[in-house]
């Protein structure tokens, strides 16, 4: 006789750096139902944004998340620039790509390390984070901060990057590329690792699309969806092509993130090679009036900003839909049928960022 039992997974769990709860219904070790739930650390930043000057709101949006703070700031200022019809200098567009892709590299390396730790491969975790430190160091050197680098502003960027630092960034990208090439074989071909990732957490292309999956979650299922193809900032001039897989499982998501790291290294180096001379910002006058929906591609996928200005310095509404918020519903389909031991691995492959989700 099968008996069902219900257990909570999280909000506190060794595999979760941030609080997320799954209510799991089990038959023996097999999951028959999973209901995700959030709400443990909601900060109400959207409401707080209504009380701030729109320039101050840039700082606020950068603090939604530490892992993709530069891209949060970039998306917000791009939206305000659209409302105010501001065309920023070309050099600023390229600098935004360089810092944004450095964020993607460190985010993917962070995830790869956490993922290795989740299936018990601690030396692989340390190798990934050792390389991530190189990226953090160059962000500190170019911006003065390791995490919330705060380089974007309405009208362009606040800082330029010196030629010495540009040379250093290229060197670091080459090192990260070479080191990750060595680790790729373990992540994708090691017998034990494949046993934990192949066919686990499977999602079809149709399921991924209908459940609104974004980023590597969607692309690992063969959904060709990457907003960088829209060509915002300088992406239209860098020959960007989305990375795709078709396996739809944890292995596919790992592969997409590894190959995206290579593509980010290439984008950074191409942006540096093609970096135009000139100003890094234009003066901004007046206040935003009107509404816009702005979208960019973060490491975890599409982020959506809705911004509404009323002609005063305070914005009437700032709404942020982060990629993790869009990827959580996929758990409703991926987890049922899986083994309890696979839950940490499946959950981590959505790259859950609760800081973003609980903005």
């Amino acid at each position, binding site marked *: 006789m099968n008996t069902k039992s219900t257990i909570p997974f999280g909000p506190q769990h060794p595999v979760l750096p941030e609080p997320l709860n799954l209510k799991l219904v089990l038959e023996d070790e097999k999951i028959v139902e999973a209901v995700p739930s959030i709400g443990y650390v909601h900060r109400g930043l959207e409401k707080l944004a209504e009380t701030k000057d729109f320039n101050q709101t840039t700082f606020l949006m950068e603090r939604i998340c530490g892992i993709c703070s530069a891209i949060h700031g970039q998306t917000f200022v791009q939206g305000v620039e659209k*409302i105010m019809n501001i065309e920023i200098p070309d050099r600023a567009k390229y600098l935004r790509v360089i810092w944004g892709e450095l964020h993607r590299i460190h985010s993917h390396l962070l995830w790869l390390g956490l993922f290795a730790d989740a299936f018990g491969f601690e030396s692989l975790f340390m190798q990934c984070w050792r390389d991530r430190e190189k990226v953090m160091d160059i962000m500190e050197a170019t911006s003065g901060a390791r995490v919330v680098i705060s380089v974007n502003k309405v009208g362009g960027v606040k800082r330029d990057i010196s030629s010495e630092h540009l040379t250093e960034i290229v060197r670091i990208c080459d090192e990260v590329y070479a080191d990750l090439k060595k680790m790729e074989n373990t992540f994708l071909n090691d017998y034990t690792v494949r046993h934990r990732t192949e066919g686990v957490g499977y999602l079809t292309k149709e399921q991924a*699309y209908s459940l609104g999956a974004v980023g590597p979650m969607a692309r690992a299922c063969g959904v060709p969806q990457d907003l960088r193809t829209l060509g915002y900032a300088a992406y239209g001039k860098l020959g960007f092509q989305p990375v795709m897989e078709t396996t739809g499982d944890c292995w596919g998501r790992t592969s997409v993130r590894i190959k995206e790291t290579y593509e980010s290294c290439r984008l950074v180096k191409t942006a540096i090679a093609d970096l135009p001379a000139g100003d890094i910002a234009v003066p901004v006058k007046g206040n935003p009036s009107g509404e*816009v929906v702005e979208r960019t591609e973060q490491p975890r996928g599409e982020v959506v900003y809705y911004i509404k200005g009323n002609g005063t310095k305070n914005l009437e*509404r700032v709404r942020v839909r982060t990629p993790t*918020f869009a990827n959580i519903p996929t758990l409703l389909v991926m987890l049922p049928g899986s083994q309890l031991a696979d839950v940490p691995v499946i959950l981590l492959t959505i790259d859950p960022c609760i800081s973003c989700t*609980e903005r």
Partner: protein
Amino acid sequence: MIPNVIEVTKDQLLGETQKMAANGFRFATATCTDLGEGKLDVLYHFDKENDLHNLRLKAEKDEEVPSISKIYLCAILIENEMKELFGLNVQGMAIDYGGHLILGVDSLKTPQSKITIEQRSAK
């Protein structure tokens, strides 16, 4: 300034959403804005090949609005969030968190609503 916006009533919402699904659109998210005086503005955002289309619904706070989660299951989180944070009266959600997806039992109700100082002091 937002392109591709179709204004809908609550009676048209499910029909128009069904058309989006039939035309292969992905549900991206929804945005609720409190316009003051008990009026809410809800934008439902849909994407197809990076082309964004939107349905705009104006609703009163107490007015019942149908859930689109029977068409797009992934709408459950945002519908629950709009219900809790703005007081949008969404009915028939595929998973209803009973007002506690984000808010705790002793949390301030509809914390993202516009509220005057007089209303706040009366609470």
